[in-house]
């Protein structure tokens, strides 16, 4: 840690933390606990780390926690909250207790995700091509074409190497009742969070170096290389070194840090819409010595804002004429335009059918049971059971537009009832899944408590195989009892360890 940082904020350990043991009074409770088995002993995969943590006095742990926070602040890995007229920097809370996955579990997850990503790509290729799946009535035509992320402009457009989803973030949860991993949602547009996976690991390695000596944790830092390789392979021009850029909406986007981070790691130019210009259906960037041709754009700008001539005319962050260049085959975009028709929460219900239809395989990872409010029979069930279900708006993400039935008051539920009836296509409902939990530290009270978590692995598809960085982003609902892990809703994150073996003494 550099010295100017020390001057910014001093480390301050509450005296009452003293030398109390960290896990004093820890209660794994009745949910599946990722660290502690029902018999009260640590699970084999978590045993080595648990021993280190359990032997660590509270004040020592707290000091490390504050140093870790400080390193995020110094690096500016913060988001800005405007409350008193000037911006206040907030950290995305990072919890120091890692989530640990044994190898045999990861092997299943990896295969299941690869299968899913392949199927999503076949589906998109089909939907914007021959539409066999609609003719075979595997999924209702009406449902696909009413999706607000369905892009007519993509019909019949040949995307480079037939890849639509190059990068997918697929959210998994573990059901406490069965111990099984379930897919909660697909993110096939521009999933964010990978920079936290890499930074969290960096901070953990510095903070708990010894734990890495005794646990065989699989590395994650090859992600940018792998992504860079895929992006370069998309170039429509053969021969010389392709020019790949990352298109960002700019500084005020909440994922801006990630955009910078990835551009730097991949050694590509980070550009804003105003840096690019389209001349005769060719994309260029403006440099100090004139225009330079661009071949591949890793875009972190939504479809709607990508090209004001094709989509929303009021977009200030897009590139006028980009869609024409795309159609002319002069530029590759990752992910392709129109992938939102694969991660719509109503379409989600059909992904297991996609797997069967395109791959002829049974899905390895199950979906959560999903009621489509567009179906009258499902809608009437949902309306009768609003208090027990989770209702989600199909096109939203980030925990917005969501009803948590069991924890909502009557008024909120009735509000949703009205909305559901007015626009059933826009909603799905699912039973509440009792998510697994992981020990997490509460700095306010200095206690370790079990908190609900999910997992977002990041999948890369190069047209032949799917590569998944071991682990992914574990998000944690830091509020007691909360099942909502989104950062916009007060969630934090954890480092995720996939072990080379299954942990324990024998491994």
């Amino acid at each position, binding site marked *: 840690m*550099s010295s*100017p940082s020390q001057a910014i904020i001093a480390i301050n350990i509450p005296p009452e933390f003293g030398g109390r043991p960290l896990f004093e009074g820890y209660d794994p409770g009745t949910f599946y606990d990722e660290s502690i088995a029902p018999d009260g002993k640590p699970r084999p995969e978590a045993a080595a780390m648990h021993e280190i943590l359990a032997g660590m006095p509270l004040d020592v742990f707290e000091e490390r926690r504050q140093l870790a926070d400080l390193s995020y602040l110094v690096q500016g890995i913060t988001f800005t909250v405007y409350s008193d007229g000037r911006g206040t920097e907030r950290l995305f809370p990072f919890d120091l207790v890692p989530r640990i996955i044994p190898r045999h579990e990861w092997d299943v997850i990896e295969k299941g995700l690869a299968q899913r990503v392949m199927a999503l790509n076949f589906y998109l290729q089909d939907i914007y091509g021959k539409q066999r799946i609609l003719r075979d009535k595997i999924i209702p035509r009406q449902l696909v074409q009413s999706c607000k992320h369905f892009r007519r402009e993509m019909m019949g457009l040949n995307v480079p190497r037939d890849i639509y989803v190059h990068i997918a973030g697929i959210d998994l949860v573990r059901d406490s009742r069965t111990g099984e991993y379930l897919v909660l949602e697909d993110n096939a547009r521009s999933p964010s969070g990978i920079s936290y996976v890499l930074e969290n690991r960096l901070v953990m390695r510095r903070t708990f170096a010894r734990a890495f000596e005794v646990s065989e944790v699989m590395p994650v830092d090859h992600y940018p290389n792998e992504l860079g390789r895929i992006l370069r392979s998309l170039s429509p021009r053969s021969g010389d070194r392709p020019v790949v850029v990352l298109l960002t909406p700019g500084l005020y986007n909440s994922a*801006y840090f990630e955009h910078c981070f990835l551009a730097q790691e991949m050694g590509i130019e980070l550009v804003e819409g105003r840096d690019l210009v389209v001349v005769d259906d060719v994309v260029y960037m403006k440099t100090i010595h004139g225009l330079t041709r661009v071949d591949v754009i890793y875009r972190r700008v939504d479809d709607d804002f990508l090209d004001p001539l094709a989509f929303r005319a009021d977009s200030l962050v897009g590139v006028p004429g980009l869609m024409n260049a795309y159609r002319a085959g002069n530029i590759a975009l990752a992910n392709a335009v129109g992938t939102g028709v694969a991660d719509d929460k109503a379409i989600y219900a059909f992904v297991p059918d996609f797997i069967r239809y395109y791959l002829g395989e049974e899905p390895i990872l199950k979906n959560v049971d999903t009621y489509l409010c567009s179906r009258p029979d499902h809608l009437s069930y949902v309306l009768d059971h609003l208090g027990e279900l989770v209702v989600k708006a199909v096109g939203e993400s980030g925990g917005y537009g969501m009803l948590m039935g069991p924890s909502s008051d009557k008024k909120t539920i009735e509000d949703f009832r009205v909305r559901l009836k007015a626009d059933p296509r826009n909603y799905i409902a699912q039973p509440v899944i009792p998510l697994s939990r992981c020990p997490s530290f509460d700095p306010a009270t200095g206690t370790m408590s079990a908190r609900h978590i999910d997992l977002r692995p990041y999948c890369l598809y190069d047209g032949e195989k799917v590569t998944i960085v071991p682990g992914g982003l574990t998000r944690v609902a830091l509020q007691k009892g909360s099942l909502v892990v989104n950062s916009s809703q007060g969630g934090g994150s954890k480092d995720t360890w996939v072990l080379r073996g299954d942990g324990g003494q024998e491994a």
Partner: protein
Amino acid sequence: MLSRIADSLFWIGRYMERADNTARILDVNYHMLLEQPPDTYKLRWDPLIAITGERTRFYQRFEEANAQTAFDYLGYSADNPNSIAQCIILARENARTIRDRISRELWEDINGLYHKINKLRDEGEGLSRFCDAVKRGGHRFHGVCDATLARDEGWHFLQAGCALERAEMTARILDVHYHQLVEGPQILNEARSHAWVAVLKSVAAYEFYKRQHSHIEPTQVAQLLLLDPRHPRSVRFNLGVLQNSLYAISGSVPGSYANEGERLTGRAHESLTYDSIDEIFSGGLHDYLEEMQATCRTIGAHISQTYLYYAVS
């Protein structure tokens, strides 16, 4: 290099330099006035506001210029786009935008300075410690740049920004003080001499001056700040740095120019090299300095047009 990135580097240089210079003149003035008779007091804060080009906006807000109002306005005010805090915010914003293109150390340093001045404000720290932190921040900024940045085109845009800002700022400091002290209302000799010392100190040139001259002479002060090729804050020195950076960017060789910005920089640098201070005084120092500041502004506009915001046909 993307034009937008070059633009950000250019402005990081300018904003950091502007913050540093503003802190210097505030700090020196404050300390000098601690030992001054109160009747000269009022007279001596107004020029500071003038140096920053903020008189109109300042007097819309405050009745008189004194240590507190000057500090409020030049130090932290969000209404003053050139206040030290605003300069640091903008430098940080530019650095944040291009953080993938600068060293991690440089980003962390600018980010650290931003958090530091926020903390000083929250703690209600006074002018002296605040200015000190900004000046140290300025030194560290140059040190971190020097020790961690590659000498590529980006470096030269950063250098160009710093040099242009510093040249203009030194010309303006000299202009305003000269106007006040020589052409303005008569004040005590003793106070006047103190004021010249303050001018020299605000550009860290007092010791260098004293090594060459036994007493304070306005002509000599002007000679040093304008024409001395050895002092890193003189106008001539900085136009030389600017010229070298512009050559490095375009590939021009000395004695030639590739664009209007280079031509004007070269011409101004020639003039500062071959004009004598006596000639300048007989032609009118104020006019000379005004023209020099205008030239700096024009050069900035041409750099922008040539490299940063050119039209695409």
